[in-house]
């Protein structure tokens, strides 16, 4: 993978004046605007010679956030959703592909020289892995002193070395270590203690803002609680603003003021913590919350309906709503009579068909032998009773069946778990029949014509307001759909 920054538009960046959005709300410390981070694969010389298109991985795709002074904003999502990339990109540890980040109104991506160093001083990061985040060849004292030596601090002291050591000792004591441990190496510490060292290092330059990138994920629960308490104490003591990145919802609820939920590179819901946890709006957030097993003896009585399937690849994210391939509440067309379970299964089948997992051979397996015409008549019959605009629709379909297939195809009984009958079933059978005949494109379009959901046509956007969810179940603006997907921080709270 190579990082790519040529596609970036820098035109509208620059210092934001009092009229800028960021300052409309006085206490916004850091604002992320429409951040994109793509990775490009297959970009070597030989790939170009072979004329292979560079393939992009859309790690972060249009994320907007505003982080207010003194708050903790949680950024949750499962692995690969782009939450850590967001954290690192907004600190300019990775080159963004597009979008902007504004720290107190100043465009971070345009900083250079002294200004950049000043930003580095004020914004820091704590990493997840307490093993790889500390250089094994440096003592704890050297590690904590590193930011000081990079910035030549403390500059005004008579004896820099001495002053630096005092500062290191002070930091170590503050995070709960002893200054006598200064000359030890990281491997002599336990995971929790290492994480304390990482925190001390992040505090060395007295920052205002810290990205906490899964700081407790690698720790045992008993130690995790120690670190969470420490972070909470430090926030109060040093007046810190946190961006807390996590996959563990329990921890997020415990520490954060507001939460943003990410899925496949996008923020799909955002809101105040309690509200989001008590009334999650996006089906993904709901499923995520539901999936966390509770450590209570009555946990087994709690009904869970786990999300099916896997997160799709960010190389080729689904059209429209990215969650639609797993969504238990995917929206059928207005004119289609179908139960949710059946619709979900049809959509899954379509997905597999379009990705090629279901091929002609597989389609033949799914079709029951030689069905004969009786079944066809049966289904068309029942179709009459529930089809809403069957007159034209059904007839056209009937004609096509007669001409292209000749013989009525029937689905095997166990293709669908849910009850799927009538015209819906017949259309699926027809599509599979086309596929069995080698007409892939035909099969895809037959299904799309009948079952295409708004969720696959149009990407939902986050509405304004304190608790928006990017989902077609909630009022989506009809005008600015897809045009301007940046959030308005003014209406944020």
């Amino acid at each position, binding site marked *: 993978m190579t990082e790519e920054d040529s596609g970036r538009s820098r035109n509208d960046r620059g210092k934001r004046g009092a009229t800028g959005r960021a300052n409309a709300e006085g206490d916004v410390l850091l604002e992320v605007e429409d951040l994109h981070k793509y990775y490009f694969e297959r970009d070597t010389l030989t790939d170009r010679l072979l004329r292979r298109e560079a393939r992009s991985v859309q790690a972060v795709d249009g994320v907007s956030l505003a982080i207010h002074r003194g708050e903790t904003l949680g950024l949750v999502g*499962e*692995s690969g959703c782009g939450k850590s990339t967001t954290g690192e990109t907004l600190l300019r540890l990775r080159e963004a592909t597009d979008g902007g980040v504004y720290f107190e109104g100043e465009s971070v991506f345009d900083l250079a020289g002294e200004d950049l160093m000043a930003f580095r001083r004020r914004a820091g990061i704590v990493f997840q892995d307490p093993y790889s985040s500390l250089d094994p060849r440096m003592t704890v004292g050297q590690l904590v002193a590193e930011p000081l030596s990079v910035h030549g601090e403390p500059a005004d002291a008579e004896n820099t070395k001495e002053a630096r050591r005092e500062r290191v000792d002070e930091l170590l004591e503050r995070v709960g270590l*002893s200054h*006598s*441990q200064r000359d*030890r190496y990281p491997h*002599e*510490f*336990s*995971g*929790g*203690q290492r994480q304390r060292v990482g925190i001390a290092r992040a505090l060395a330059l007295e920052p205002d803002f810290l990205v906490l990138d899964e700081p407790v994920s690698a720790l*045992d*629960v*008993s*130690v*995790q*609680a*120690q670190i*969470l*308490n420490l972070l*909470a104490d430090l926030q109060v003591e040093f007046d810190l603003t946190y961006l807390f990145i996590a*996959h*563990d*919802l*329990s*921890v997020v*609820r*415990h520490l954060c003021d507001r939460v943003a939920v990410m899925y496949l590179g996008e923020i799909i819901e955002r809101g105040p*913590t*309690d509200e989001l*946890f008590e009334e999650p709006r996006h089906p993904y957030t709901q*499923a*995520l*919350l*539901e*999936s*966390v*097993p*509770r*450590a*209570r*003896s009555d*946990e*087994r009585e709690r009904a*869970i309906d*786990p*999300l*099916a399937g*896997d*997160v799709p690849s960010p190389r080729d994210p689904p059209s429209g709503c990215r969650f639609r391939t797993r969504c238990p509440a995917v929206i059928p067309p207005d004119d289609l009579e179908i139960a949710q379970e059946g619709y979900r299964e049809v959509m*899954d089948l379509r997905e*597999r068909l379009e990705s090629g*997992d*279901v*091929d002609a051979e*597989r389609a033949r397996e799914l079709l029951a032998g030689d069905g004969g015409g009786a079944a066809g008549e049966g289904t068309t019959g029942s179709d009459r009773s529930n089809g809403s605009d069957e007159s034209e629709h059904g007839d056209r379909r009937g004609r096509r069946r007669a001409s292209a297939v000749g013989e009525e195809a029937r689905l095997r009984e166990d293709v669908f778990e849910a009850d799927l009958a009538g015209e819906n079933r017949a259309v699926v059978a027809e599509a599979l029949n086309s596929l069995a005949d080698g007409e892939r494109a035909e099969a895809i379009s037959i299904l799309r014509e009948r079952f295409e959901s708004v969720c696959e046509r149009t990407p939902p956007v986050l509405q304004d307001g304190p608790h928006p969810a990017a989902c077609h179940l909630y009022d989506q603006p009809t005008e600015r759909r897809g045009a301007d997907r940046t959030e308005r921080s003014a209406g944020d709270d």
Partner: protein
Amino acid sequence: MLEDRAGSEDAPDGSGADTTTADPILEVRNLSTQFFTAEGQVNAVESVSFDVYDGEIFGIVGESGSGKSVTALSILDLVESPGRVTAGEIWYRNPDLADDMRDSHPEAVEGEYVDTRRVPTGVRRSLRGPTFSMIFQDPMSSFNPSITVGEQLAEAIEVQRRARANPRSTRSRTQGYGLGRFLTDSLLPSRSYVSAESRERATGLLDQVGIPDSAERAAEYPNQFSGGMLQRAMVAQALAGEPDVLIADEPTTALDVTIQAQILDLLADLQDEEDMSVIMITHDLGVIARMCDRVGVMYAGEIAERGSLTDVFDRPVHPYTEGLLESIPDPDDPAPRLQPIEGNVPSLIDSEMGNRCYFADRCPKAMDECVAEKPAEVDTAGSAEHRVRCVLAEREYDPTRALSGTEEDREREASADD
């Protein structure tokens, strides 16, 4: 049922006072596993005993270094150098095997039970698959990256098929597979250890664990699978020998929470369908609560507390169990502050362990007697199975007897044990 058998030689003949109607399928007694490292002898598992009943899910919960995974590996005899199972018995109920072994190895047989530690190595290994099988934490590293998933599953089926065809001989499972076979197999795909029948069954198993288009997926390599799908495949592989006891070692730790829910569902369903016993090993109390009937809490190589789910979760006696439960943030309840257990997990180096309660250094309720002698495992006021290795089971915490100089001790401990 669970008397303290430490020091007692009584055989697991099922005559003990039972609270359950059935005999356990597995009785682990005083199991100890040690690692002989350059730093010294590490007591990873120290005298652990527990029973697993037919059709139940027994949970073992503990933090890293508590010895829970080593316990699992010890049961399957998969501990590798520098580690070794140094003591203990693993009684497995199997009348047929008991009959087979009774003459040749009378010391390893007791009624319907066989001590798998005392049977010959070949017999013990032949139990892997049909008796015990295991699901590992990280599916990506637990599959051979250069062999298709279907082939690896089919192998697991094939080895059991051959064993059934010729149960007396361990040789038949191999059928002279060697370097020559490897070369011909690599170059000529048609000649293979695995039969077409086993391949077909492998596809069926993939179907059973909910992998769509299983025939196509069977021909793919592990790196073409997602983590969740691969963990499903591993579950399928573990089912290949239709085991009596499935050991799931952190089966969902490497997975995302929505995928974890799928896998836990799958495991629960399969356990129900196949009527297996499951030993569920995890650090996640939520997973335990979701899955298990009974649970043992491990700390520093010992089972600190055990009992039914309600015993342990609602009436914990051991301060470690209490602390663990209080350290977890609850997604349904924004508690303002967590109550962590102070300090760090102790090292398990033999020379530093001493005859005392291993938790005393971190224990908020440690008293003088805690460091005087190692507390025995005793009954509690809870259900009959609720047992705990703590002095507090028999007396109230008495602040006047609090461990003297605890604060300084802890500080010293904290800087010394790293």
